[in-house]
């Protein structure tokens, strides 16, 4: 098989941290939590936001999370990637960050996740994507209309919480 591939060991994780976890303060947003985690991971790595030029993130609650996160952090020129493929999105981000770092598209990549599903509930956090060919119940393949619940808006009060993880990559010298 021809083609290029990244060099094993050419990059390294240099910091990792968690945001607030569990029942977080009311009206926290997933982007708040991502930013909080990135800030703590930067402290862990001995780096600062000034070093960050790559943002990789995903959350079901924000389709354009990398754009929102870049705005939040004040990094409008960052290389961004908000690939969503479900729970494995962040492993994909690691692979994408590896490739971006090797390609010189960024030098310090931050990978982030944030969710307030514990607060707003799964239905509000994740809209369903129906595959009409895989509908086991035999009901109409058209998705049922979403009831627009208050819980899906920013006015919902937190009774439960949220979680997120974050890790950071940096271009290394390889071994």
């Amino acid at each position, binding site marked *: 098989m021809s083609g290029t591939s990244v060099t094993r060991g050419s990059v390294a994780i240099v910091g990792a941290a968690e945001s607030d976890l569990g029942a977080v303060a009311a009206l926290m947003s997933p982007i*708040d939590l991502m930013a909080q985690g990135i*800030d703590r991971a930067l402290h862990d790595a001995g780096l600062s936001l000034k070093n960050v030029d790559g943002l990789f993130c995903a959350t079901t609650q924000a389709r354009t999370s990398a754009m929102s996160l870049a705005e939040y*952090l004040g990094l409008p020129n960052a290389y961004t990637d908000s690939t969503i493929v479900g729970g494995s999105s962040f492993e994909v981000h690691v692979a994408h960050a590896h490739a971006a770092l090797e390609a010189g598209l960024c030098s310090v990549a931050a990978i982030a996740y944030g969710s307030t599903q514990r607060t707003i509930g799964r239905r509000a956090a994740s809209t369903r994507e129906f595959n009409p060919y895989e509908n086991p119940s035999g009901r109409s393949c058209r998705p049922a209309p979403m009831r627009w619940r208050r819980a899906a808006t920013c006015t919902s009060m937190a009774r439960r919480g949220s979680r997120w993880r974050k890790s950071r990559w940096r271009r290394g010298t390889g071994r």
Partner: protein
Amino acid sequence: MPNAAESPLATYIAHLKRGELGYQFSPSANQVVFYPRLIAPKTSKRDLEWRVSKGLGTVHATTVVHPQQGDSYNVCLVDMDEGFRLMSRVEDIAPNRVKIGMRVKFRVHTPEGDEDPYPVFTPAEGA
């Protein structure tokens, strides 16, 4: 590390319910921050303190939205005197009469029902 006691949005809404337009300021970076955040953009400063705006600003950009149904309305960006910009609308004036450079004053709009309050503006002559 214990969880943060209050989210930026919750504090912002609490200010609005008191009739105030809150914003943040980092003394160590001399940096004004809006929209409210847990850390400051660019500098990532954590020493964000809350301040209340005097409520006066200048229209930076303005447009009129013409929905299929309902009245046309104004959408604008306002540069507050304290040094931050936010999106809102100017009321008490025809939407297309809002002009760049117009001085405006903040007031709280509280929607019916349980929606959160938000800032709106009115023309402020000679302010």
